[in-house]
């Protein structure tokens, strides 16, 4: 049944190692044969690097580009792609009334300054605190703080794209992306919002980003394999990727009134978090699946990052409750993008419905061939260390379908 406050997806902006834009990323995933990898620069770690981007395409002013660290640029760029895709970019009235929830962490530090401090201390500085102060006060770039501050991705989207209805930044690894999509959709459903920009971005090509994961022994040190098949590979299983995913969500009424192209309907979105033991995780997943109808869909897009324990729990859950549903672990092709994982999975699910084609298997025997194009797709994100989220997207009903 379609209703005026249904949530529909009308814009998708994607930047990844596979390319730029929703269409190009869809085409690359459909024809996927091997991932784009950087294996040298951060050895023994592998990342999915960003291709060369002409940033001025979505961030016109060079001055604006300079005010951002890489993840902010990726996010601001992806947001611009989504707005353009939805036919909202440059529409002053629609942007000024548009709500925004960004999933962001940030904190890209200046590697050179950090290295200077480590050297100074290693050489035997007298008072370590004083030595740190001395380097920081003389070497830190004045603009770096803002370029690494979490809520300044949203701030830059406001400045560059003029989205100013509201601006909220959620933090906390994959969970931030789940809450962002869930909250934006709930607000639209309840009539608290008519249209919203939601998404996240991540720069994997930074040693401090790798360090966070490696402290928990989460990173693969033996190169790439499909996310489901990393058990035998040295290290923790995860391979990060640079990229961003933004969605434009609208009430069906708002989208239809302005004649927008509707990719699909975003149905239930649910998320939870609790102790990560297998039994407790399984219980939460079963409850979320019942709430969203995940196991009644024709395909499941998973954003598992390949971390061993959580991926094993996910495989066990899927084998028990969705054995007949083909699953696609899209991080095999894209890498793990932390805050952007959930929005990215929703984006690819929407594209699959829109193009009327199943996503092909991405190199793992865990991914069964799809016999037909799905009419609805489940989105499943099990955070590499915490949080679980699900959503169901379906072919849209009513006008615009």
């Amino acid at each position, binding site marked *: 049944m379609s209703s005026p406050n249904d949530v529909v997806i009308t814009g998708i902006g994607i930047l990844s190692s596979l390319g730029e834009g929703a269409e190009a990323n869809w085409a690359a995933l459909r024809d996927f044969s091997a991932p784009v990898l950087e294996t040298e620069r951060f050895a023994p770690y592998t990342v999915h690097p960003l291709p060369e981007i002409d940033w001025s395409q979505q961030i016109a002013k060079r001055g604006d580009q300079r005010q951002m660290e890489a993840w902010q640029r990726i996010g601001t760029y992806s947001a611009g792609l989504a707005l353009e895709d939805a036919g909202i970019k440059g529409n002053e009235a629609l942007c000024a009334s548009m709500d925004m929830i960004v999933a962001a962490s940030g904190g890209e530090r200046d590697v050179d300054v950090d290295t200077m401090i480590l050297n100074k201390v*290693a050489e035997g500085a007298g008072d370590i605190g004083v030595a740190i102060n001395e380097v920081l006060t003389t070497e830190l770039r004045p603009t770096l703080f803002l370029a690494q501050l979490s809520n300044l991705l949203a701030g830059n989207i406001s400045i560059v794209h003029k989205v100013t209805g509201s601006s909220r930044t959620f933090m906390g690894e994959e969970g931030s992306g789940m809450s962002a999509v869930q909250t934006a959709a709930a607000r639209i*459903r309840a009539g608290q919002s008519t249209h919203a920009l939601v998404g996240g971005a991540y720069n994997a090509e930074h040693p401090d980003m790798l360090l966070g994961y490696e402290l928990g022994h989460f990173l693969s040190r033996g190169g790439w394999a499909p996310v489901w098949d990393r058990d035998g590979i040295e290290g923790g299983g995860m391979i990060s990727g640079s990229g961003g995913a933004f969605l434009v969500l609208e009430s069906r009424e708002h989208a239809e009134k302005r004649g927008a192209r509707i990719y699909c309907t975003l149905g239930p979105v649910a998320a939870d978090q609790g102790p990560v033991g297998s039994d407790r995780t399984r219980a939460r997943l079963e409850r979320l699946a019942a709430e969203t109808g995940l196991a009644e869909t024709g395909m499941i897009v998973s954003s598992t990052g390949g971390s061993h324990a959580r991926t094993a729990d996910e495989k066990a859950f899927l084998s028990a409750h969705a054995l007949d549903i083909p699953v696609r672990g899209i991080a095999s092709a894209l890498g793990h993008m932390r805050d952007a994982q959930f929005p990215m999975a929703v984006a690819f699910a929407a594209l699959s419905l829109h193009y009327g084609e199943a996503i092909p298997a991405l190199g793992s025997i865990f991914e069964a061939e799809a016999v037909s194009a799905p009419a609805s797709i489940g989105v499943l994100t099990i955070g590499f260390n915490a949080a679980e989220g699900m959503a169901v997207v379906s072919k849209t009903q009513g006008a615009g379908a």
Partner: protein
Amino acid sequence: MSFTDHAGRPVIAITGAGVVSSLGAGKADNWAKLTAGQSGIHRITRFATEHLRTTIAGTVDFMTPAEAGSAALTYALAESAALEAIRESGLSESDFGGPLFLAAPPVELEWWQRLALDAAGRDAGGAEPGYDRLLLAARSGEHLEFYRSSQFGTVGQKLQERLGTRGLPVTLSTACASGATAIQLGVEAIRRGEADRVVSVGTDGSVTSEALVRFSLLSALSTQNDVPEKASKPFSKDRDGFVMAEGAGALVMESLESAKARGATILGILEGCGECADDFHRTRSKPDGSPAIGAVRAALEDAGVSTTDIGYVNAHGTSTPENDKMEYLSLSTVFGERMASIPISSNKSMIGHTLTAAGAIEAVFSLLAIRTGTLPPTINHANPDPAIELDVVPNVARQADVKRVLSNSFGFGGQNTCLVIAAEPA
């Protein structure tokens, strides 16, 4: 008494409030000192301040050992404020049963952790100091506590476990408006019918030398180090920046209907929230003040009240030249001539700017102003800025029967969020 508001939505009751600041832990201690005009700003002793332009802050030094670091303090502050709020509400402090909305500062590995890793990397055979050696230490050693403190979801996760909140906690940052945003998200969740009760917390224990350097480089901090307690002087002619500080604030909010049904004491009503982002500049506001004006108006409209219904404004009042001028412009535009006679004061004159926590702490103080009939002063008001014609409740607290407060929060990145808090209707 109606359980729905002017727009037919559930009325939101505040049934618990908690606070920690440099003045102390708990509402009683804070309110006694705040209404006595006492400052919590002091010379920094927690870490070396040589080479720093600003050497004063409102750090909270009585919660965790200095060597425990920012992440541990940020959690301890949040837990303390949340427990005070939940205990006051009479709900369970280990099985709260509603969602958690947490405003928390962004996290990074701290310097003591980086140095420990570099030393461990050296012992593991790493040649040069630097990130390769940190990564070597990370993969060869066991640093699970470092790992946890580097994850943005950790404080929320630990609070969820401690308090028994329901579902995936939302951790958020809207810079200096974060605390107000946490409250706003809680209000919206109750209005949507997703929850009968929520706990919204703002916490910040992130005063470090690097944080001071960062804000100094943006020329945001006061450098009036000589007499620390006199440095924060919102709305004064010689104000020269804010004073960084730490603390936490928390509110338990419920639908009035469910609060009444369980016989809870209603402390006040969270009537409305308003928000408007600024697209002008990363740290400066649009010169015409339109986004802040928009946020104030949106909050009043959301609450279904007019300017004449507001009896007191709890200012953002950071003591930066820019903020206080802009706040005055915005308020005088919205309230017109009446603004000259509405008392407005800034808690930051006494507790400093608690950044991520500020909006939540100031919501608690707004509530206390209503409940006690006392307006906390703006201290250090010796040289009023002639361009700012406001009744800032200068220097001494004032008795006043206030039924409804506007609390402002404005932040870097174009964040503007305002709350309207009212007494329980008779």
